[in-house]
């Protein structure tokens, strides 16, 4: 299990290959990557603030829960902070399990909890100014399924 909270960009392909290279016993690897949506015209940059110390603890706790609930061979969470340009990768999650149901469920669980329980705050920067991204009711509701 690896967890990294970092300002630097990461390489989705390299991270995926490194992760999948050491998952003996796994038949299924799922990755999720969150990107800054780049809708052509109004390219939105993003500024991500976080709570150093609590961030790592919160993510580690979420990963421990996932490990306890599903049969996981391994899991990975990388989450960036700081300023990101449109199209850039914000974060990624990877899970490896003997079977696909566990790999998918654990990845979705990690994402749902990272969205609403890891101390990150996103600010969108566009030509119109800067706006803090509001938490969505559906993201809070998504936690109820677990």
């Amino acid at each position, binding site marked *: 299990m690896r967890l990294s909270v970092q300002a630097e960009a990461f390489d989705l392909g390299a991270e995926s290959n490194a992760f999948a290279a050491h998952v003996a016993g796994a038949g299924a690897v799922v990755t999720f990557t969150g990107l800054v949506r780049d809708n052509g015209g109004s390219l939105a940059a993003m500024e991500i603030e976080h*709570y150093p110390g*609590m961030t790592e*603890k919160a993510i580690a706790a979420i990963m421990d829960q996932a490990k306890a609930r599903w049969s996981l061979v391994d899991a990975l969470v990388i989450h960036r902070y700081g300023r990101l340009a449109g199209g850039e990768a914000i*974060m990624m999650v990877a899970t490896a399990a003997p079977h696909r149901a566990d790999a998918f469920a654990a990845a979705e669980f990690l994402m749902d909890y990272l*969205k609403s329980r890891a101390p*990150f705050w996103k600010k969108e920067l566009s030509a119109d100014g800067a706006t*803090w991204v509001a*938490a969505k009711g559906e993201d809070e509701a998504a936690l109820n399924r677990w």
Partner: protein
Amino acid sequence: MIDVLYFAWVRERIGLPREKVQTDAATVADLIAELSAREERYALAFSDLAALRVALDQELSSFDAPLAGVREVAFFPPMTGG
């Protein structure tokens, strides 16, 4: 003395990321009342508790939680990670 931290728009409204606060507040709610009484910017930041979250020593908590033994309190809006 406890460390009080502010993040995102709470930080922007209050105008600083962290400060040390000398307080005898028994609960988070009491601390919020003390801070809100200080200055308008605090009152504004704390005006809608439904839009706020609090962490005590880096664990999510609630507004009625006691502050005894707590060293670090953080106020912030609902998180938007992922």
